[in-house]
């Protein structure tokens, strides 16, 4: 950024000043306060313009991040004094069954919500991409779940999945399937929570895919149609490869979302939400962090979980980046060959 400003700095001040004939004295003296001010203005103003973001980021992003890191090395009770503990909090996490349980839950819930969600979004986007009547309406409609609050959605789904009085068990009853314990059993509970996540985010991802699909040149489809490729074949061989960067983007975003999953299991579980059910069967990392920090009052351990989550995300991000790069490499090869 600084380098791009360099040329202007030398060139412009005299030019502008020479355009003001009323003050010939200052024209002759380039080091006058006014030109100095002007130079400072030119140099500093861009920084002032971008400053608000970076100040806010420093206050609400960077500082908490660093402070959390510092806290994670301490033994801090809520409202108490900090006491240096080194890596003790991390070692305790490593030894804790609850941490590994939460990590596994986060992974499984993430998997069974993200994968169907993105596949469904792809299909939905493909359908929305057709020329159909009322296309605008459908496009807005798929976004409606995203616009509802997590709390409202989770509450409604908690009612639907209620073991005794819920609609879903009632419907299952009509087709002769025994009532499923959606709250107390591990897999049903995780599936129920994933349903909420999937319901909320499918439309959102579908719209992103749709935007990407509309940028795919129509010639490709026409050529493929001439070659006799079916709609499905076109979807697989043209659409998917063309929007691959977008797919990668949604995978990254969804992974981050899944790792931080919090509101849905919390509200779904009601009074048992923070612990993720009586046997911690759907306690995610975020819930564990919350429980450690605000219920147990062990801020140091909660901070350690926060940092582990950050490191996990960076690791996942790195893997996805590497995968994406190797993918792109292949694509270029393919393009070169054809």
């Amino acid at each position: 950024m600084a380098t791009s400003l360099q040329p202007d700095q030398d060139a412009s001040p005299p030019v502008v000043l020479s355009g003001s004939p009323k003050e010939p004295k200052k024209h002759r003296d380039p080091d006058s306060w006014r030109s100095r001010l002007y130079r400072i203005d030119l140099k500093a103003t861009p920084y002032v313009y971008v400053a608000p973001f970076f100040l806010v980021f420093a206050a609400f992003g960077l500082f908490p991040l660093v402070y959390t890191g510092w806290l994670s090395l301490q033994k801090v009770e809520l409202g108490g004094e900090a006491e240096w503990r080194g890596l003790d909090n991390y070692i305790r996490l490593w030894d804790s069954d609850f941490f590994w349980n939460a990590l596994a839950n986060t992974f499984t819930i993430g998997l069974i919500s993200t994968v169907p969600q993105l596949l469904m979004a792809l299909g939905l986007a493909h359908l929305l991409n057709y020329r159909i009547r009322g296309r605008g309406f459908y496009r807005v409609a798929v976004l409606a779940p995203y616009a509802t609050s997590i709390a409202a959605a989770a509450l409604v789904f908690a009612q639907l999945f209620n073991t005794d009085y819920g609609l879903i068990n009632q419907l299952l009853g009509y087709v002769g399937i025994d009532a499923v314990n959606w709250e107390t059993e591990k897999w049903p509970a995780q599936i129920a929570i994933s349903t909420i996540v999937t319901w909320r985010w499918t439309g959102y991802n579908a719209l992103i895919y749709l935007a990407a699909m509309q940028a795919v040149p129509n010639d490709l489809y026409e050529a493929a149609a001439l070659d006799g490729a079916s709609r499905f074949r076109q979807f697989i061989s043209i659409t998917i490869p063309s929007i691959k960067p977008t797919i990668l983007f949604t995978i990254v975003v969804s992974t981050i979302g899944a790792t931080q999953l919090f509101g849905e299991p919390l509200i779904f579980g009601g009074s048992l939400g923070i612990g993720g059910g009586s046997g911690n069967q759907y306690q995610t990392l975020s819930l564990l962090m919350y429980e450690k920090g605000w219920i147990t009052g062990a801020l140091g351990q909660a901070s350690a979980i926060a940092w582990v989550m950050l490191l996990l995300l960076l690791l996942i991000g790195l893997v996805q980046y590497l995968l994406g790069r190797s993918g792109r490499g292949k694509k270029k090869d393919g393009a070169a060959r054809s």
Partner: protein
Amino acid sequence: MRISTGVARRRSRAVTLSTSGLLALGLVLTGCGSDGDSGSDDAAGGDKQITLRVGTFGSFGFDNKTGAKLYAEYEKLNPNIKIEETNVADGQKYWDALKLRLSQGSGLADVQAIEVGYIAEATGDAMASKWVDLGKAEGADTSAFLDWKVKQATTRNDQVIALGTDIGPMGICYRKDLFEKAGLPTDREQVGQLWAGDWNKFLEQGEKYKAKAPADTAFHDSASGLFNAVISSEPDQYSDESGKLHWEGSPGVAKAWDVAVKAAQGGLTGKLRQFDEKGTWNAAFKNSKFATVACPSWMTGIIKDQAGPANKGKWDIAQAPVPANWGGSFLGVPKAGKNTAEAAKLVAWLTAPEQQAKVFAVNGNIPSTTAGLASESVQNAQPEYFPGVPVGKIYSDAAQKITPAPIGRYDGQVKTFLTDNGILDIETRGTSPDKAWNNVKKLIEDKIDQ
């Protein structure tokens, strides 16, 4: 021992302040304190308009809708005062939020209720200084209360941080109609005799009930409720005399665990969680899903509210197998509140014998003052919802038999782990008792030790 290491710790302003922003996000419950308050401490007795906020959980029976309309009465007596109550169903969640707010010193109501399970934590070194000393407050008379009730709310430095509202002498509330259908006696004396002296006899009646029970009903509401009932009848609970946690070796915990596990595994319970936020437990009252519920006096108010008018007159109260005290609460005034002097006056008034008697008549919360317990209106009380049941007599008799157990700082949390993660897990997921016990042990080690 690892557990006891985290007890005494001084607080640091820096940590409190810097975490307060995050705390604000974490808080879920009760009212948040800034708007509308125009008064201040020196307004005591003046004509300045003051809004007092009262934070409660469960059913205290003060409110103007279903309670004893005490707020309306106080507002009439003090025209410059307006009272607002915020109520949370789940006592555990209420306490968690209150603890956070106390530690950060903001967002507190002027009056905050404290459940007896957490009173040792509230009077502990970390929190004692957060409360106004009500022993010296205007209009408060600590000598009016039962000795042990005052002692529970007294800190090491002889501050009385809260005044008792009620105590929890316990009976067993049962559905006469369901008992009749199952071929059990319905007269409260006879029913009491069925299980007098032994919780195992209670389970035996449960088996009998189950054999002939109306479809879709359980004998008892929840195994975790039964656990609380049994341990409430034990002189030795989670902590020893010095307040040190000894739940693992406690005979009281072992007994309560065994009875609750037997009930859960025998299918005698409704697989519910008491005070569940989703209202499943409440719905089960309404839909007559169980025949008995362990019934501290304050539970009668909950039965009235949840079972609703359709089930009026179907409930009766028998004596508990073993005399017990389950729960009972306090009202405290946090120093960080805006109108501490007026709030203390309100607390003194709300907990005075006459008011306690009024609450009892409507909501069943039995007085914690000797005068309140002995008063005619309590002795002869027959709440409308329980026609023909001498509720006042039953509970004031039961109150005489209470021997208070020592309470420790972590009792409330340990109780929650034992019931929510231990018993409930066995009851609803069929986890083996050994595994559940180990899980509770790990939880307590992991979460109570810092």
